[in-house]
């Protein structure tokens, strides 16, 4: 786990083409994606798993979680 801040972001408002995109069981819902700046100044691309898409902003504090076979995901630091 690495803490960082949102350097830039957007919201994926339309379903990406399938394949390769795997639509979630509950159906497609817009999701946030961005680059999270970490301590050394590097920016890591991650899916931003935030509760409220309208809350995403540059400078927002997030924690990156990485797991094998998944792209990095970042969550709000509570």
């Amino acid at each position: 786990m690495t803490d960082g801040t949102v350097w830039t972001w957007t919201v994926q408002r339309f379903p990406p083409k399938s394949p390769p995109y795997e639509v979630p069981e509950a159906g497609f819902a817009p999701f946030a994606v961005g680059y999270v700046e970490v301590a050394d100044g590097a920016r890591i691309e991650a899916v931003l798993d935030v509760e409220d898409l309208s809350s995403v902003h540059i400078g927002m504090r997030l924690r990156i979680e990485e797991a094998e076979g998944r792209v990095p995901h970042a969550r709000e630091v509570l």
Partner: protein
Amino acid sequence: MSVHIVGAARTAFGRSELTGRDHGVHAARAALVDAGVPWSRVGAAFGGSDAAGNADTLVADLGLTGIPFVNVRNGCATGGSALLSAVNAIRGGMADVVLAVGFDKHPRGAFDPRPADWGLGEEYGREGLMVTTQFFGMKIQRYAHDHGITPRTLALVAEKAYRNGARTPEAWRRQEITAEEILASGMVNDPLTRFMFCSPGEGAAALVLCSAELARELGADSVELRSAVVRTRPPGSFEVFSPRLDPGEPTSVSTVSAAAAFEAAGIGPSDVDVCQLQDTESGAEVMHLAECGFCAHGEQEKLIAAGATEIGGELPVNTDGGCIANGEPIGASGLRQVYEVVTQLRGRAGARQVPGTPRVGFTHVYGAPGVSACTVLAR
């Protein structure tokens, strides 16, 4: 040795029953007619498409004269690379009359690249990150934050594109759309809305080039190609499909490419009377204005509001409506820009003609994975 463009042509962009190759044949023939030289006089040809086949198959229609016809496939820089090769062929003495042609035809909707082709794991595709428009949204999002660019400015860029497209007979999108309608057209990738984006389409453009001496002999209405440059990305640039961006202020391949084109031409950005900048979406035109050296970062907000980039403005940009109004047939896009500047410098642009006899023009493309092609043209 100076190289001149003596013939230039494009086809109507958009969607039709034609194949990409059909477009290529039409554009090549029209460029030869414009130059007043027969195909049999052409000594070498360079061309390509990204998704519509090999350009050298055009010989079946143009004539089996036996000349070398080199296929070029260089993404968004396909046209620029064909042009660069044509210049070198003339300077190197390979041929004195050379054809450069680019054409394409793409399926509807956003391009859908595969993760493996980009050295990425399959998870990037599965989780929905192989989407080019996301990158465009994220790049302008940060730029807008750093340099004070508002959504209204992004809408004004698209509004101008459709207005100029309406004055361009060969453009695809010829209906004017207001900034309000553009802002309300539905968010695609924040902060970019649907009408701020170009679409993949179809079309072709072709140029006939020769030495200055031969251009005089032909009595051609020619434009000098002062420089044609292609560059790949420097370290630290922010590009599509990058899992990571290195620390520091991002660099730009467009800055490198434009500076090299101006240096080779011996002309600076302030000398330019008309220019074509890659506008995959509105944000790209805004950023490329500064990256190519036409203004300081952040100045665009005021310049665009004041109409500086309009056809009658201080620096007309994308006078034919750019990619937003013409669509982006990848192989044809760069040569379409050159065609437009040649047409402007010849004073043949009709309803979209830049007033006051423009003498110097500039073209710029940018594409994945960090490639840029620029030209400087002069009358």
